[in-house]
């Protein structure tokens, strides 16, 4: 049942009772560039009652939105709550079915679709709770997206780093919800990963006190910063570089990247094709949009677009990352660093 708020109004003999629902509205278009069209209609109050509405003409949304909605549904179901809402319009229903959204919101929907439609280059929303499931998912994922091996490198890389972050740091009650889609018109792969765990600020708090969710997000994107230690270079198991690598892959791809946690997000904007790509260890130097006081997302949601037109190969991208990493530290001139021995 939804929460009840009782309001006593002076002068009135009755007590007003207001039902509080968690509400989401799926707009006709919600991608990273215009994610506000989704967030502006998200009301996170009450995690046991979810009310879902959608645009009644057509819907095209980023896998980030798919993963977030499915994560909310997963949480409500885990808590024994109720999901209600309007029926999806017939035009958008096949798409939402294929992305796993209808099933998450109503497991007994009973709607049948042609599973072999040619437009299907997508990964429907899937729950990943263990390291082994992640391994299997990455193996299964790449053939479905029909990429070349070279195009697959950054996709596999991003998926591994983002999901491992969830499994290791989030305490999410159901792990990560992931989805992906290839968009032919823009020739890009979009990926969304969402959890309903403790969020970045709480995960960082063991080692870093941050004043706000936004501060925590910005700190987490700096290479070498991890919630598990204050030591440079991290612990034996965590280096704190996953988000930096992921942001860098989006930037070299000249595409969008978004991290949303608590009441804040960081959105990396597209890089102009006429300008050379420069990677920054400090996300404040990126062409980006950082917002606070958004509807509270319990946990973390990350979305990324990776262009398949990317001219730079993955090795060159890694070399740029290496250079950005080196610029972020002040090395003493008298210390000679050893090099690894390649044979």
């Amino acid at each position: 049942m939804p929460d009840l708020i009782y309001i006593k109004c002076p002068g009135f003999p009755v007590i007003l009772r207001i039902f509080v629902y968690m509400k989401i509205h799926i707009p006709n278009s919600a991608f990273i560039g215009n994610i506000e069209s989704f967030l502006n209609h998200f009301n996170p109050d009450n995690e046991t009652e979810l009310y879902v509405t959608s645009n009644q003409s057509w819907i095209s949304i980023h896998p980030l939105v798919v993963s977030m909605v499915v994560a909310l549904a997963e949480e409500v179901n885990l808590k024994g709550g109720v999901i209600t809402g309007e029926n999806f319009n017939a035009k958008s229903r096949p798409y939402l079915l294929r992305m796993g959204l209808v099933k998450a919101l109503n497991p007994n929907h009973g709607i049948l679709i042609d599973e072999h439609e040619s437009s299907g280059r997508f990964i429907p929303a899937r729950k990943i709770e263990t390291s082994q499931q992640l391994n299997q998912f990455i193996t299964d994922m790449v053939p479905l997206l029909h990429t070349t091996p070279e195009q697959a490198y950054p996709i596999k890389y991003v998926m591994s780093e983002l999901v491992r972050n969830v499994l290791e740091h989030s305490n999410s009650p159901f792990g990560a919800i992931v989805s992906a889609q290839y968009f032919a018109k823009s020739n890009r792969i979009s990926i969304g990963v969402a959890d309903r765990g403790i969020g970045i600020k709480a995960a960082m708090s063991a080692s870093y006190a941050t004043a706000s969710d936004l501060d925590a997000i910005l700190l987490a994107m700096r290479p070498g910063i991890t919630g598990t230690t204050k030591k440079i270079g991290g612990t034996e198991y965590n280096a704190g570089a996953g988000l930096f690598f992921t942001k860098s892959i989006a930037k070299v791809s000249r595409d969008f990247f978004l991290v949303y946690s608590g009441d804040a997000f960081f959105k990396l904007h597209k890089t102009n094709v006429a300008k050379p790509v420069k990677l920054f260890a400090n996300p404040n130097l990126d062409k980006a949009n950082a917002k606070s006081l958004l509807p509270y997302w319990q946990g973390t949601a990350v979305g990324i677009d990776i262009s398949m037109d990317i001219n730079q190969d993955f090795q060159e991208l890694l070399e740029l990352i290496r250079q950005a990493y080196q610029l972020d530290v002040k090395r003493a001139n008298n210390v000679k660093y050893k090099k690894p021995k390649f044979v």
Partner: protein
Amino acid sequence: MTKIELYNYTGDFAENKDIAKDLRINCIEPNIVNDSVQLDFNNITSATQSFIHALISNVIRINGVDVLDRLYFKNCNDQIKTIINIVVDYVQDGIFIDPEDM
């Protein structure tokens, strides 16, 4: 020399940090103290920084940077070489740089 064929544990994409940690604890650390260790990346097409970190960072921290004279990386493609270089560099940053100086 102890030789470890990583592909047998990771497949062509080396990303599982749990496997990296197990290899480090059970195969690298016991042997690197008095011997050399060769990590063979044959047939591995890509690896994540997290995997390489879990595999070697603590080996360098515990044994000191001179352990790099006894740790060999075989059959690495350019991608994997770059990632290994990144990890080896920042682990040494952690050894040589005082966090207060950052």
